[in-house]
């Protein structure tokens, strides 16, 4: 229901972060990522941000060299998801300060924590940046 997976892929097709909310084996995931990324990367600026794939939709957004792809059910509100991607980016931006791909690569666990605060089992749970970042900041302070 809702969100099925969230991927962050760079423009060369390498997956930087993958969070799945339904079970798929490793091979399936790899195949899926390959297919979707190929489709999305081939699109240009003028085209809309929604791609239909199999029986669900992919909502994607490009930020510099990084693509954010979210796979959702067909009845999900696409623009809301689009904005959710932006919210995610802004949250990471607030935490890392001018976030870039390298930040995600080097602090992958933090990126995952943030994502998990925001989305649980495919539903959006928290949309306030301070609430999301609070536990992470606590962790940083404690360590």
């Amino acid at each position, binding site marked *: 229901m809702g969100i099925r997976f969230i991927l962050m892929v760079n423009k060369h097709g390498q997956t930087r972060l993958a969070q799945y909310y339904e079970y798929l084996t490793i091979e399936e995931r790899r195949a899926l990522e390959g297919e979707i990324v190929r489709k999305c990367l081939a699109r240009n600026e003028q085209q809309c941000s929604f791609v239909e794939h199999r029986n669900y939709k992919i909502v994607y957004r490009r930020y510099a060299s990084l693509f954010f792809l979210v796979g959702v059910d067909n009845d999900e509100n696409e623009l809301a998801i689009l904005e959710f991607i932006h919210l995610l980016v802004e949250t990471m931006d607030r935490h890392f300060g001018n976030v870039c791909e390298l930040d995600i690569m080097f602090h992958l666990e933090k990126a995952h924590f943030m994502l998990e605060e925001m989305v649980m089992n495919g*539903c959006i*749970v928290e*949309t306030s940046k301070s609430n999301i970042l609070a536990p992470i900041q606590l962790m940083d302070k404690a360590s």
Partner: protein
Amino acid sequence: MFQTVGNIGGREFAESLAPDVQKLLISSSCRPLVRKKAALCLLRLYRKNPDVVNVDGWSDRMAQLLDERDLGVLTSSMSLLVALVANNHDAYWSCLPKCVKALERLARNQDIPQEYTYYGIPSPWLQVKTMRVLQYFPTIEDPNTRRSLFEVLQRILMGTDVVKNVNKNNASHAVLFEALALVKRIMSQCVALLGKFIAVREPNIRYLGLENMTRMLMVTDVQDIIKRHQAQIITSLKDPDISIRRRALDLLYGMCDVSNTKDIVEELLQYLSTADFAMREELSLKAAILAEKFAPDLSWYVDVILQLIDKAGDFVSDDIWFRVVQFVTNNEDLQPYAAVKAREYLDKPAIHETMVKVSAYILGEYSHLLARRPGCSPKEIFSIIHEKLPTVSTSTIPILLSTYAKILMHTQPSDPELQNQIWAIFRKYESCIDAEIQQRAVEYFALSSKGAALMDIMAEMPKFPERQSALIKKAEDTEADTAEQSALKLRAQQQTSNALVVTDQRPANGTPPVSELGLVKVPSMSNVDHSSADHGVTQGNGTLTVVDPQPPEPSADLLGDLLGPLAIEGPPGSAAQPERKLVPGTEGVPNANDALAIAPVGEETNTVQPIGNIAERFQALCLKDSGVLYEDPYIQIGIKADWRAHQGRLVLFLGNKNTSPLVSVQALILPPSHLKMELSLVPDTIPPRAQVQCPLEVINLRPSRDVGVLDFSYKFGTHVNVKLRLPAVLNKFLQPISVSAEEFFPQWRSISGPPLKLQEVAKLVASVALKRQS
């Protein structure tokens, strides 16, 4: 902990943890963080096991939760609510006003903490979720609540403009689209708005505009308004963005009806030539369905389908052309037109194989209607079709063979040159590897040599009974998302096709003649049931092409011989038996095999049961020279055989197992045409516990797989009669020749292709001392 359970909890977890989770959720002393997670955890558990949330007590608690100030908890509770309400909205009525209030609060931006405001819009995600919940409630009773809801929605609908800031734009439009989904039943202003959207430059909005319009199709009065935007939608069909193109196609499919069919279908066909492959199959299927449903007249429909095949032959599934053929067959005035069109298409230099199939079929059936026209004499039609023969694959050749046979049949007066040409083709294919082609070539050849008797058999196909379009089934089967599904549902509701009516009449030529000699392929049209599209395809193919009942050639036909013995028996029994034993299809043969070993005579019932399996015994005797042919409680018949080249000598040992004599003993040989059998005299009585020997001479005249039958009867209390196959089979008359390795292997290697050649390695079970070859 919540994270774990929430994400991967299973059914057992659900049962055991549910109460605890629920407690945590409602206790206000817990920190918001915990409660958020608790809410979603519960959601997960609920999905796994719906009984977890006991409905009555819980709806009040939910209502309480919705009073929550903290938006984080509210968001998660809302998610939970969506799932609960989706299953059972009656129980949660009390939550409804709370939802509306929450929505109001958000929309008016009343004491929303700053951090939940996203580019000036208070938590768009929560708004979206709330509206999603509201969608599940059919109507709102309480006028106050209704009013406030309408106000909110009104404001959203009117107040959302296209703003510079992309994010704000998107967020506000997200809310807007959700609102549209909510009100689609109520306001038709929505459609006007949507009409504006599909012309906007921003691609996302266009996409959503098209998608929502498709969803709106379910509301009937809106359809006229949607049609006004037809031009714009058709432009979207040519949009460079594939997602938009798909949406446009779905919308066009949904909004098509009698008035705008011609335009839409013609647009689709035009687009087909430039469409990319992913879409072509869907496109062709939908165009075909639309053409069928709303065709203003039948000839237009045939035109469209033929054009479709011409342009996108690869993507036109067999269902489509079957359907065309069905309609042409059922409508007599359509037939000459279809034939002319088919002929025109054949003139083209490079045509698709499906087109060849369709044209060949139609011309085969109806070319005689065109005989007067120039360029359409049977000879010319034949030569045009024949030109295509080298270019087609094995699946088309059977259809072409049928066509030739029908053309031949329809040429009156018969043209010997044409006949010879066609016969030459049949003869060529008589030795083809493919069983279907071979069978048809052989049978058509034999039939056409019969002359006038052909008329009945090769008459036109009878009309098809009406059945649900396989195409619609196929369209519903292919993966469809929700917007598409509403269009499909609409389509399914409009089942009564007003333009094309398939009539159900008895076949014009009456029931096909049943031949005395058994093998009748009963037209199995009633069996064809479109329970699944694929099943329908194979069956459809079968019925379309092999319905002509064809009696087998008694002698020259290798394929019919297994049931040959039926031909030997007297007429009364045989007509009844084939229908009983011959199920059209493959089951006929093995059944007949076993049944024939002891073929019951119609009038008398055998109460004496044989011991052992007669078929097995027969098969064993085919390999050995001596053994028991038949045994029952009273008699045992054994055989000892001796073979030399084409001659054989069998001795039948009739042994009486009983203490009293068997009387009225009679043994008759029913020889097949290829064997000469002579049985010496069989005594009338067999004394008790005695064995009588009866020699039987067999001479093999020519090779055949037929079997001789021994009709044996005796009386012991009751009359017993059995018909036994005699193991005087082909392999007995074969003689081995010794071949050295040098001679053998070149021969072996020169045989090409399966199944003529079979190589198997046999393992030696025990070591055998190999003797040297002499």
